[in-house]
Protein backbone atom coordinates (compact mmCIF):
# COMPACT_ATOMS: atom_id res chain seq x y z
CA UNK A 1 0.00 0.00 0.00
CA UNK A 2 1.29 3.41 -0.86
CA UNK A 3 1.83 6.05 1.77
CA UNK A 4 -1.22 7.86 0.48
CA UNK A 5 -3.51 4.83 0.71
CA UNK A 6 -2.14 4.08 4.17
CA UNK A 7 -2.86 7.59 5.38
CA UNK A 8 -6.30 7.58 3.82
CA UNK A 9 -7.15 4.32 5.52
CA UNK A 10 -6.05 5.65 8.90
CA UNK A 11 -8.13 8.72 8.23
CA UNK A 12 -11.25 6.68 7.56
CA UNK A 13 -10.66 4.64 10.69
CA UNK A 14 -10.12 7.78 12.75
CA UNK A 15 -13.32 9.35 11.45
CA UNK A 16 -15.29 6.15 12.12
CA UNK A 17 -14.03 5.97 15.67
CA UNK A 18 -14.85 9.65 16.05
CA UNK A 19 -18.41 8.96 14.96
CA UNK A 20 -18.71 6.05 17.40
CA UNK A 21 -17.42 8.34 20.14
CA UNK A 22 -20.03 10.91 19.26
CA UNK A 23 -22.78 8.28 19.45
CA UNK A 24 -21.57 7.08 22.84
CA UNK A 25 -21.45 10.66 24.09
CA UNK A 26 -24.98 11.27 22.96
CA UNK A 27 -26.08 8.16 24.79
CA UNK A 28 -24.38 9.40 27.94
CA UNK A 29 -25.82 12.87 27.52
CA UNK A 30 -29.30 11.42 27.21
CA UNK A 31 -28.82 9.31 30.33
CA UNK A 32 -27.47 12.21 32.37
CA UNK A 33 -30.22 14.49 31.13
CA UNK A 34 -32.93 12.08 32.21
CA UNK A 35 -31.49 11.96 35.71
CA UNK A 36 -31.03 15.74 35.70
CA UNK A 37 -34.73 16.23 35.02
CA UNK A 38 -35.53 14.43 38.25
CA UNK A 39 -32.63 15.61 40.40
CA UNK A 40 -31.41 19.15 39.87
CA UNK A 41 -28.10 19.68 41.59
CA UNK A 42 -24.54 20.81 40.94
CA UNK A 43 -23.57 17.19 40.42
CA UNK A 44 -26.11 16.46 37.70
CA UNK A 45 -25.52 19.81 36.01
CA UNK A 46 -21.78 19.19 36.17
CA UNK A 47 -22.19 15.85 34.43
CA UNK A 48 -24.13 17.55 31.65
CA UNK A 49 -21.48 20.24 31.16
CA UNK A 50 -18.67 17.70 31.18
CA UNK A 51 -20.36 15.42 28.68
CA UNK A 52 -21.37 18.29 26.39
CA UNK A 53 -17.84 19.65 26.27
CA UNK A 54 -16.29 16.29 25.48
CA UNK A 55 -18.97 15.85 22.83
CA UNK A 56 -18.09 19.21 21.27
CA UNK A 57 -14.42 18.28 21.36
CA UNK A 58 -15.16 15.04 19.55
CA UNK A 59 -17.28 16.79 16.95
CA UNK A 60 -14.44 19.20 16.20
CA UNK A 61 -11.87 16.43 15.94
CA UNK A 62 -14.07 14.31 13.71
CA UNK A 63 -14.92 17.24 11.45
CA UNK A 64 -11.25 18.10 11.16
CA UNK A 65 -10.43 14.53 10.19
CA UNK A 66 -13.40 14.39 7.82
CA UNK A 67 -12.14 17.44 5.93
CA UNK A 68 -9.49 15.29 4.29
CA UNK A 69 -12.20 12.98 3.02
CA UNK A 70 -14.69 15.63 1.98
CA UNK A 71 -12.37 18.04 0.20
CA UNK A 72 -11.79 17.08 -3.42
CA UNK A 73 -8.18 16.06 -3.68
CA UNK A 74 -7.83 13.73 -6.64
CA UNK A 75 -4.04 13.53 -6.69
CA UNK A 76 -3.94 13.27 -2.95
CA UNK A 77 -1.44 16.09 -2.89
CA UNK A 78 -3.20 17.97 -0.11
CA UNK A 79 -3.39 14.84 1.99
CA UNK A 80 0.27 14.02 1.46
CA UNK A 81 1.30 17.51 2.46
CA UNK A 82 -0.61 17.83 5.71
CA UNK A 83 -1.33 14.33 6.92
CA UNK A 84 0.75 14.61 10.07
CA UNK A 85 -2.09 15.14 12.57
CA UNK A 86 -3.99 12.06 11.46
CA UNK A 87 -1.99 9.47 13.38
CA UNK A 88 -1.97 11.32 16.71
CA UNK A 89 -5.65 12.13 16.35
CA UNK A 90 -6.39 8.50 15.60
CA UNK A 91 -4.49 7.50 18.72
CA UNK A 92 -6.37 10.04 20.81
CA UNK A 93 -9.67 8.85 19.38
CA UNK A 94 -8.92 5.25 20.21
CA UNK A 95 -8.07 6.11 23.80
CA UNK A 96 -11.22 8.19 24.06
CA UNK A 97 -13.23 5.30 22.68
CA UNK A 98 -11.98 2.95 25.38
CA UNK A 99 -12.52 5.59 28.06
CA UNK A 100 -16.04 6.27 26.84
CA UNK A 101 -16.87 2.58 26.77
CA UNK A 102 -15.89 2.32 30.43
CA UNK A 103 -17.92 5.39 31.36
CA UNK A 104 -20.85 4.19 29.30
CA UNK A 105 -20.82 0.82 30.99
CA UNK A 106 -20.86 2.23 34.49
CA UNK A 107 -23.49 4.80 33.63
CA UNK A 108 -25.89 2.38 31.99
CA UNK A 109 -24.95 -0.39 34.41
Amino acid sequence: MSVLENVLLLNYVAVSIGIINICLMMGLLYSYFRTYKEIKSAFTVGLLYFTSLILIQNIFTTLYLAVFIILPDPQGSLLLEIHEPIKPLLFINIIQLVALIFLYKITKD
Partner: protein
Amino acid sequence: MKKLLWWLIAGSSGGPNRAKIIMKLNERPFNAHQLAEELDLNYKTVRHHLKVLDENNVITSSGQKYGELYFLSDKMTDNYDVFNEIWDKLKG
Protein backbone atom coordinates in the same frame (compact mmCIF):
# COMPACT_ATOMS: atom_id res chain seq x y z
CA MET B 1 -19.94 6.98 50.82
CA LYS B 2 -21.19 10.39 49.81
CA LYS B 3 -19.56 10.29 46.37
CA LEU B 4 -20.73 6.75 45.84
CA LEU B 5 -24.31 7.64 46.71
CA TRP B 6 -24.20 10.64 44.42
CA TRP B 7 -23.12 8.41 41.59
CA LEU B 8 -25.62 5.65 42.32
CA ILE B 9 -28.52 8.09 42.53
CA ALA B 10 -27.58 11.09 40.40
CA GLY B 11 -25.01 9.69 37.97
CA SER B 12 -25.88 6.25 36.68
CA SER B 13 -29.16 5.61 34.92
CA GLY B 14 -32.21 4.57 36.92
CA GLY B 15 -30.75 6.45 39.85
CA PRO B 16 -33.99 8.02 41.08
CA ASN B 17 -35.63 4.58 41.21
CA ARG B 18 -32.77 3.38 43.37
CA ALA B 19 -33.38 6.29 45.70
CA LYS B 20 -37.01 5.25 46.00
CA ILE B 21 -35.91 1.72 46.84
CA ILE B 22 -33.60 3.03 49.54
CA MET B 23 -36.39 5.13 51.01
CA LYS B 24 -38.72 2.13 51.05
CA LEU B 25 -36.15 -0.07 52.74
CA ASN B 26 -35.65 2.65 55.32
CA GLU B 27 -39.25 2.07 56.38
CA ARG B 28 -38.77 -1.67 56.76
CA PRO B 29 -37.24 -4.66 54.93
CA PHE B 30 -38.89 -5.82 51.73
CA ASN B 31 -38.26 -8.47 49.12
CA ALA B 32 -37.86 -7.72 45.43
CA HIS B 33 -41.41 -8.56 44.49
CA GLN B 34 -42.90 -6.35 47.19
CA LEU B 35 -40.69 -3.47 46.15
CA ALA B 36 -41.80 -3.86 42.54
CA GLU B 37 -45.42 -3.70 43.70
CA GLU B 38 -44.95 -0.81 46.10
CA LEU B 39 -43.02 1.30 43.62
CA ASP B 40 -44.89 0.18 40.52
CA LEU B 41 -41.69 -0.88 38.80
CA ASN B 42 -40.82 -3.81 36.61
CA TYR B 43 -39.67 -6.79 38.71
CA LYS B 44 -36.50 -7.32 36.67
CA THR B 45 -35.65 -3.64 36.98
CA VAL B 46 -35.99 -3.86 40.74
CA ARG B 47 -33.83 -7.00 40.82
CA HIS B 48 -31.16 -5.19 38.82
CA HIS B 49 -31.17 -2.13 41.08
CA LEU B 50 -31.04 -4.33 44.16
CA LYS B 51 -28.03 -6.13 42.72
CA VAL B 52 -26.20 -2.85 42.10
CA LEU B 53 -27.08 -1.52 45.56
CA ASP B 54 -25.95 -4.79 47.11
CA GLU B 55 -22.64 -4.77 45.23
CA ASN B 56 -22.01 -1.31 46.59
CA ASN B 57 -22.83 -2.22 50.16
CA VAL B 58 -25.82 0.06 50.35
CA ILE B 59 -28.13 -2.85 51.16
CA THR B 60 -27.75 -6.38 52.41
CA SER B 61 -30.05 -9.37 52.21
CA SER B 62 -31.27 -12.12 54.43
CA GLY B 63 -29.38 -14.72 52.46
CA GLN B 64 -32.01 -17.19 51.29
CA LYS B 65 -32.54 -17.20 47.56
CA TYR B 66 -36.30 -17.22 47.16
CA GLY B 67 -38.20 -14.22 48.53
CA GLU B 68 -34.96 -12.88 49.96
CA LEU B 69 -35.50 -9.82 52.18
CA TYR B 70 -33.40 -6.72 51.70
CA PHE B 71 -32.29 -4.30 54.40
CA LEU B 72 -30.30 -1.11 54.39
CA SER B 73 -26.70 -1.87 55.32
CA ASP B 74 -25.19 -0.44 58.51
CA LYS B 75 -23.05 1.84 56.39
CA MET B 76 -26.16 3.16 54.69
CA THR B 77 -28.13 3.77 57.87
CA ASP B 78 -25.13 5.61 59.29
CA ASN B 79 -25.05 7.80 56.18
CA TYR B 80 -28.75 8.28 55.73
CA ASP B 81 -28.49 12.03 56.18
CA VAL B 82 -26.18 12.17 53.15
CA PHE B 83 -28.83 10.36 51.20
CA ASN B 84 -31.49 12.84 52.31
CA GLU B 85 -29.28 15.70 51.24
CA ILE B 86 -29.10 14.26 47.75
CA TRP B 87 -32.77 13.45 47.59
CA ASP B 88 -33.75 16.94 48.71
CA LYS B 89 -32.55 18.18 45.35
CA LEU B 90 -35.38 16.27 43.76
CA LYS B 91 -37.56 18.44 41.62
CA GLY B 92 -41.18 18.81 42.67
